[in-house]
């Protein structure tokens, strides 16, 4: 499609738009507008290249002034804004004044970006129609972007910008970086230059960022000025008036400028021709053709057909502008072949141009699934009726400060989440101090350690979320409540630690084989700081743990410590062990967080020890050995957590209740009227809930509800606090066999029935 289209552009008016996909309006009628649009866009590209050449000699403010002056002249000539239309009120004049100021600022940014990164990149970045940018922003900042295609388009756009930023080694970059500060023509450009230099990016990258900013401003400006243009009486009239006002605005500045600074221009006369072309191509022709096309065609189609020729022609001119072929196109011939190296085509630019074309194409296409309606019903004719209102009402946005406040309140309400939150804050603080200091001193080791801390913080964040969510009320989907999330989070944290242990292990093995030389001078203070932070965490969490443990100790009979041997040889044996027994299924989340902090502490200790060994004895082998040891310790300490979490997740009979349940089930059989029971299932659902189901068979003359009460009481004493009992009498099996159950079920049921019959006929006689 694009190739065909490109052919059209190059072939001129001869080509048609027949192959351009589905067109609602007969395509032949649109062809001339499309061709007009394409030609205009190509000419606009020419004009921008021209203006780049002009800007080398003319000061930017003067340039904009002349541009605005020329445009205003022509537009007044064509539109006659004063003689036609209704008169303009004072308030509208004020608005037009604002409009003009904004317009001036945007064109200033635009042309300044042009001087920084050249016409090709400016065209690529700035010549996007409003609809493209608006759909890009809606993908990025709202949830309802309009399907995967739009997301892809947005991703392409971002990739294209990144390509320009990272992979475009513009030759001018080096040249621009050399120039001394303060040689700039005016205070304004000097200010902008300093701002870019402050950001720490090269000039041409600064230009890219500036242009992206200007693009966003332009779109906002167009959207904002839409209402004003209706008030005033048409976009064209508004433009004409606004240009006049901006000429008046710029006039004093230009006068001051031309008085104070000496001009680089030798003869203004030779510049008349180029200025005329620029004014015509960039401002007037583009504006009029755009407004015509947007009337005749859809906006999206306009944007689509407009973007392609301008990007392609920008690429072509970027390659051939300084070439002799284009000499007749160039209005200024004097600077012919001297600076052919600046802002040339590079691989990055070509790639980003391709991405820009793709993204403009995707983003400007009308979204098919953008409107998500809810089906209400069917009309009498049978066509489905949709409701499109819902979306707007659903997103009744909560204000962000209030949201933060409420979630903070929730976090601080309970002990666990409060502990995690405080520790997370401490950790983050330490991390940012480290990162900041690392950036300040330009120390890579510190920065990478900061990243590592951030990586660790993600586990804390997950623990915090789990602790928060576990208190949510039961919903329809989570019918037992959210308590089990803590166990799942503990499990994930355990896996996290296993992954960390694995990476540390791999790293240390690699270092054992080939021990690198380290410089240790920065390590000690950092690891001591980390150690202190983590020790605080350990104190806090172990305290919290003992607390919760003490509260729930009553029912927790940890009878076996079968896995405690795993922890042998653990330097922190006391801690790990006490946790192993305290947290057994109790609060896996807190256990996971605790183990994480413990692992970090071990890491800090390891670093300190190995630093001492290296500095004192020069044993470089100590570092990998230490980390090997730590990896094994982390792994061993995390095994019990994972094992316990697995048991809970697999719905195992809680080990600490085994004995009671056994006794309770024996007691159950002594209940009067109860024949037998089947399918006893007991499992721990979350820290507080032990759930169970059981089917009991009773003689036909007992009251079911009494039996249910008795059984519930017995099992409640054994610790099952969420119980369901199915009471079955003989009649039940008869009904079941009568109802159309499957053959196997019937068979099973009859077996049950037989046993009951046996009871009935034989021993069990009331």
């Amino acid at each position, binding site marked *: 499609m694009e190739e065909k289209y490109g052919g059209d552009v190059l072939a001129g008016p001869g080509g048609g738009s027949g192959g351009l996909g589905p067109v609602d309006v007969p395509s032949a009628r649109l062809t001339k507008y499309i061709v007009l649009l394409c030609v205009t866009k190509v000419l606009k590209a020419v004009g921008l290249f021209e203006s780049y050449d002009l800007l080398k000699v003319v000061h930017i403010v003067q340039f904009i002034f002349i541009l605005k002056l020329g445009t205003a002249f022509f537009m007044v000539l064509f539109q006659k804004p004063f003689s036609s239309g209704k008169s303009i009120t004072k308030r509208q004049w004020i608005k037009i004044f604002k409009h003009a100021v904004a317009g001036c600022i945007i064109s200033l940014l635009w042309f300044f970006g042009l001087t920084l990164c050249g016409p090709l990149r400016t065209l690529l970045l700035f010549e996007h129609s409003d609809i493209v940018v608006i759909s890009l922003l809606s993908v990025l900042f709202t949830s309802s972007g309009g399907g995967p295609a739009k997301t892809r388009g947005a991703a392409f756009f971002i990739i294209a910008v990144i390509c320009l930023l990272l992979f475009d080694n513009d030759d001018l970059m080096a040249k621009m970086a050399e120039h001394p500060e303060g040689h700039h023509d005016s205070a304004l450009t000097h200010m902008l230059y300093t701002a870019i230099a402050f950001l720490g990016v090269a000039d041409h990258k600064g230009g890219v960022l500036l242009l992206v900013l200007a693009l966003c401003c332009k779109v906002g400006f167009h959207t904002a000025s839409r209402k004003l243009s209706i008030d005033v009486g048409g976009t064209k009239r508004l433009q004409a008036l606004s240009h006049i006002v901006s000429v008046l605005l710029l006039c004093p500045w230009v006068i001051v400028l031309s008085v104070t600074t000496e001009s680089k221009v030798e003869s203004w006369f030779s510049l008349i021709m180029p200025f005329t072309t620029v004014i015509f191509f960039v401002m007037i022709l583009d504006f009029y053709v755009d407004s015509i096309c947007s009337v005749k065609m859809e906006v999206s189609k306009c944007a689509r057909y407009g973007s392609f020729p301008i990007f392609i022609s920008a690429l072509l001119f970027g390659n051939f502008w300084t070439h002799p072929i284009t000499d007749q196109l160039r209005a200024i011939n004097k600077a012919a072949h001297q600076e052919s190296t600046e802002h040339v085509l590079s691989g990055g630019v070509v790639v980003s141009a391709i991405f820009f074309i793709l993204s403009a194409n995707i983003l400007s296409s009308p979204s098919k699934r953008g409107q998500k309606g809810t089906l209400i019903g069917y009309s009498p004719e049978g066509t489905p009726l949709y409701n499109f209102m819902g979306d707007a009402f659903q997103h009744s946005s909560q204000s962000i400060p209030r949201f933060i406040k409420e979630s903070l309140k929730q976090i601080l309400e309970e002990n666990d989440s409060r502990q995690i939150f405080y520790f997370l804050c401490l950790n983050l603080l330490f991390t940012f101090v480290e990162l900041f200091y690392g950036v300040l001193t330009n120390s890579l080791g510190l920065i990478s350690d900061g990243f590592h801390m951030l990586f660790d913080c993600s586990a804390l964040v997950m623990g915090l979320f789990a602790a928060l969510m576990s208190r949510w009320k039961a919903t329809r989907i*989570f019918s037992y409540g959210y308590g089990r999330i803590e166990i799942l989070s503990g499990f994930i944290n355990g896996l996290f630690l296993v992954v960390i242990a694995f990476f540390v292990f791999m790293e240390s093995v690699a270092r054992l084989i080939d021990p690198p030389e380290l410089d240790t001078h920065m390590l000690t203070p950092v690891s001591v700081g980390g150690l202190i932070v983590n020790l605080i965490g350990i104190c806090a969490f172990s305290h919290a743990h003992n607390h919760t443990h003490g509260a729930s100790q009553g029912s927790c009979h940890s009878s076996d410590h079968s896995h405690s041997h795993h922890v042998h040889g653990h330097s922190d044996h006391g801690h790990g062990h006490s946790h192993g027994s305290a947290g057994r299924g109790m609060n896996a989340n807190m256990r996971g967080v605790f183990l994480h902090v413990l692992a970090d502490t071990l890491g800090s200790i390891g670093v300190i020890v190995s630093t001492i060994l290296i500095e004192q004895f020069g044993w470089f082998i100590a570092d990998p050995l230490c980390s090997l040891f730590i990896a094994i310790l982390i792994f061993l300490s995390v095994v019990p957590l994972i094992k316990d979490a697995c048991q809970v*997740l697999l719905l195992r009979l809680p080990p600490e209740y085994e004995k009671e349940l056994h006794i309770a089930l024996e007691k159950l059989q002594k209940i009067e009227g109860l024949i037998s029971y089947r*399918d006893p299932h007991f499992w721990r659902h979350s820290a507080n809930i032990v759930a169970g189901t059981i089917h009991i068979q009773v003689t036909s003359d007992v009251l079911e509800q009494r039996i249910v009460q008795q059984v519930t009481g017995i099992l409640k004493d054994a610790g099952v606090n969420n119980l*369901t009992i199915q009471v079955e009498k003989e009649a039940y099996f*008869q009904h079941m066999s*009568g109802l159309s159950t499957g053959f196997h079920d019937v068979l099973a049921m009859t077996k049950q029935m037989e046993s009951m019959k046996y009871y009935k006929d034989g021993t069990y006689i009331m």
Partner: protein
Amino acid sequence: MGTIHLFRKPQRSFFGKLLQEFRLVAADRRSWKILLFGAINLTCTGFLLMWCSSTNSIALTAYTYLTIFDLFSLMTCLISYWVMMRKPSPAYSFGFERLEVLAVFASTVLAQLGALFILKESAERFLEQPEIHTGRLLVGTFVALSFNLFTMLSIRNKPFAYVSEAASTSWLQEHVADLSRSLCGIIPGLSSIFLPRMNPFVLIDLAGAFALCITYMLIEINNYFAVDTASAIAIALMTFGTMYPMSVYSGKVLLQTTPPHVIGQLDKLIREAGSVHVRIRRDANEQMVLAHVTNRLYTLVSTLTVQIFKDDWIRPALLSGPVAANVLNFSDHHIIPMPPLKGTDDSNPVTSTPAKPSSPPPEFSFNTPGKNVSPVILLNTQTRPYGLGLNHGHTPYSSMLNQGLGVPGIGATQGFRTGFTNIPSRYGTNNRIGQPRP
């Protein structure tokens, strides 16, 4: 039946047990193939890791993690064979099918953690980009790609196949589907190839290999070493995108949620059949109700327990009077009548609606019918037809009940709380509500 053998302490050591179970699995011929692939995978991963360190490329490392993930999926496959052989033990009274779910969850989470690690590493690399040697980059890519594809396509991995179909689509799949749809708009003949849902693992393997090829090209042409980091980030993000829906799906199973497909069916059944923490009047035949409820829910929930709960069991004196007065107050229950029975003989009742042969929804593990949605509350207000087995064509209650039906979904969100903790409190409320009754 029904006794729990307790205190059966493990006699053998952990490894001994593992070895024994392993022998059990290895006895099956199907698992030989998996073991073979596992061995190849290990060697392959070893080589890849070596090449990773020699090329110093983090993108290749990220791709190697996909190979490691393959190893996990092979293990999951083995576990699913093992699970098939095991019977429920007293401690694990539901059986071991859940282990399969846990394995899937663990492997997807591990893959995501690996991706997180890659992200962290690449963030560090953006600060200081090391040099990448392209020597083994392409070789490694193609070895990993061909091995991954070979494993995916030759081994029928039941758990992962199930999850990848049941879970929601990943963003990668969505984009590919979108692209292929527009491609099929141009060339309709391709629709048979592209339109079916793509296997997410094949997709991520291909996409990762593509990213690595681009990396190789750009590094060879222009020494853009930053591409390596960028494509590592891309692969990590794709891994996230692919694994996230699956881990959410299996995590939900592990969290004992009511599976989403059951909810719709449950609603439907409740509309037709009556709901579940059965609350009936004293003169109703409990066993009859129980049989009906069980029959209706049996196809949905394989391990079903229905507790019948009589409203006025504690107040036997207060009886008579229309139930409808408080029926409409039970806003947290479904108030839907059981279909009246036409049979007259208890031993041979005729069902009014046949049980639906619906496909059993998964909850306990991936393709067994759900368990433990079980304890449900049934409010049965239509009493006499059961008790006496007579057909009351239009009882005075039925109009009331229809009113109750006219407001469907009043308690729909609450009705299926499977918990049973608050029975006493319900007693209390019922007492309170029941007061105005004569």
